[in-house]
């Protein structure tokens, strides 16, 4: 099984540790993981702004980079959502359709494809608030959203429960958007920041030492908000926790 690792642009630039943790974690399960060297981005910033034509060349490059793999794995729910649902600016050839259908977010890859049972190396003795990124939650169905009358499930919490010592704390608005929203964060900065303040305030009141999420972009925004408000909690990607990060 050949695994192509996709490290989204903002992870590459700002959170390289998340990329490293993802690579190492997959390797712990004995997988051969390759990192196509010419990769850049999934096209989401342009597509979400309506600029599909401007995203076409980036999308084509993504497909070219990952065509040869059995699975593409990325530590980002929102990028995987883009690939799966919105990578449509280029003609939908068989190759394009194939890449789109074999691209997985890390949590769902571990949970649904590898069906991992234990993480003996992982210990995280902290109070953790889990942040469901909206694309992960409602776009690629990581968990049951609070709006729906359906049985509870949560793939990320299933995985985190395998980590020794972790204590999950509950938020009063468990899956309210944190206000990042991609380019929303720069085009509607006041509302975006206010949503972030409310989110990090909720986490702090819940007593969270750490906020864990499957998306670095939301965490980057929340971290910026928490620091501005002087709140103490720290932010870490789920790949790092599952890979046995010591914090």
């Amino acid at each position, binding site marked *: 099984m050949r695994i192509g690792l996709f*490290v989204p*642009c*903002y992870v*590459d*630039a*700002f959170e*390289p*540790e*998340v*990329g*490293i943790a993802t690579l190492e974690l997959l390797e712990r399960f004995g997988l051969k993981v390759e*990192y196509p*060297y*010419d*990769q*850049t*981005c999934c*096209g989401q*910033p*342009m597509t*979400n702004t*309506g*600029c*599909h*034509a*401007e*995203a076409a*060349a*980036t999308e084509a490059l993504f497909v070219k980079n990952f065509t040869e793999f059995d699975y593409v794995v990325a530590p980002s729910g929102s990028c995987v959502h883009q690939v799966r649902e919105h990578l449509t600016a280029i003609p939908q050839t068989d190759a394009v359709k194939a890449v789109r259908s074999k691209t997985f977010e890390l949590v769902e890859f571990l949970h649904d494809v590898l069906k991992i049972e234990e993480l003996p190396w992982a210990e995280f003795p902290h109070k953790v608030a889990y942040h469901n990124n*909206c694309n992960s939650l*409602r776009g690629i169905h990581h968990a049951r*959203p609070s*709006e*729906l*009358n359906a049985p509870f499930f949560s793939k990320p919490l299933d995985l985190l429960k395998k980590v020794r010592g972790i204590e999950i704390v509950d938020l009063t*608005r468990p899956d*309210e*958007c944190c*206000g990042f*929203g991609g*380019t929303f964060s*720069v*085009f*509607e*900065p*006041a*509302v*975006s*920041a*206010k*949503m*972030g303040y*409310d989110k990090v305030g909720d986490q702090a009141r819940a007593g969270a030492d750490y906020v864990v999420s499957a998306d670095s*972009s939301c965490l980057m*925004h929340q*971290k*910026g*908000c928490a*620091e*501005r408000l002087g709140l103490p909690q720290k932010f870490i990607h789920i790949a790092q926790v599952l890979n046995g990060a010591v914090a």
Partner: protein
Amino acid sequence: MSADDLRPNEDALHPDVQPASDESARGQDGQRLQHAEAASKPIRAPATREPQPRGAKIRGDRPIDQAEAAERFLAAPLHQKAHDERLWDVRKKRDVATQAIPEWEELRELASQIKTHTLSHLDEYLEQFEAAAKANGVHVHWAADGAEHNRIVHGILKDHGAKTLIKSKSMLTEECGFRHYMAANGIDIIETDLGERIQQLDDEEPSHVVMPAVHKTRIDVAEVFARTLGTDPTNDDAHYLAESQRMTTRPHILQADAGMTGCNFAIAETGTVVTCTNEGNADLSGNVPKLQIHSIGIEKLIPRVEHLGVFIRVLARSALGSTITQYTSHFRKPRAGSEMHMVLVDNGRSARLGMEEFWTSLKCIRCGACMNTCPVYRRSGGLSYGATYSGPIGLIIDPTFNKRKYSTLPFSSTMNGSCTNVCPVKINIHEQIFAWRKVLAEEHQIPLLKQGMMKAAGAVLSRPAAYRAAIGTADSALRALPRFAVYNPLNTWGKGREMPETPKQSFHSWYKQNRMKDGAK
């Protein structure tokens, strides 16, 4: 009995929205009512007067600056906090009400399918409705747009020498600019819905489809009533204010020449107009004057009475978390000695029905659930959208009325998708927001700056060498990533948030250094 006995089982209500020890908020079983209209009392007026933030600036057809209006709303923290927590409370009540019936998701699916069917055969059902209404002795009119609706209603009033009209809340008449038109033609309109009446007296549009004045605090209302109805400006007790409004509105109701309602559901087989209200004001508007008029958007049709039950079950649960509205009124035939008119209004609906990606927005039953759950709406206020319809449903409907003026609205969203999940008729609201952005970009209805930034981002991100050059060293990442993540000419990221630290090394260079020593790719 202590005050604690009266608290609902809520964990984290803000003090401003905690219920007071108030017997009127109890049901007949002695339990405190949990649905939203029962909790309207407790928002305490702020000790210091914070002026109510006003809505978006309207400049003809120029694009609405929702972000600017939202920023002013956020600059009024007492209003913003009350608004956010009030509507979040309604959202939670909605969750409780919908979780209480196991068949909830099935009902949504059914409601959606009934609407799909009806809208796919709208011409037939409209003809059936017209025939049934005429057989009931109703005068039926057709209006192609808002202007024609207003002319028709004005004509009916003129024919009867009617000078005063009482009406219940109707988003359709807001769409038509009905109140302004009638004021210009010397007809006195009195809104009978409390929230809508507040908005009329304050000369402001409704900010929410179900709670028109939800952006106002009690002290705002006290100020408006003192100015317009002569009440005590220092008394912001909700009961006093509501009673004052009732006492000043009742004489208008009793003396009005004509009455008007909107329509929640129009039943094709019987020609019936159904309204759902909590104040009974639609009944007064429809039943007291000798001349009654019902304005109906053509998308309100449902085939048969048996389908109504599905919608009645989803409407109030979605809107306020109550099982049913206090009044569900059926208007079918004129009363003895009175005259009944129905005006079927298109106003862009049939054109929208032809829009492949957007026609399902016509399923909307105006419950407001998408607004209550929308984190952007709750922090912006409905008036920031500068349009008849605000919040998520507004983002996808408003551009069908005016693509240029409302071109910015689909961007006032994080596309988090909560709206789609609460929608009782399963409109894929957030996907339509996404689709609108594409349409608007293709038609160059987005700012040149924004499109230029995306073009530049696309150019960098599609060329690995250019991308590497841009973020190759950590320090330059903040200057380069910029184009798509962190930076814009105004540095709006850094205004409200700390900037991310730049790591010593990108993942890419770590990989090159640590995993490519053997030259393997």
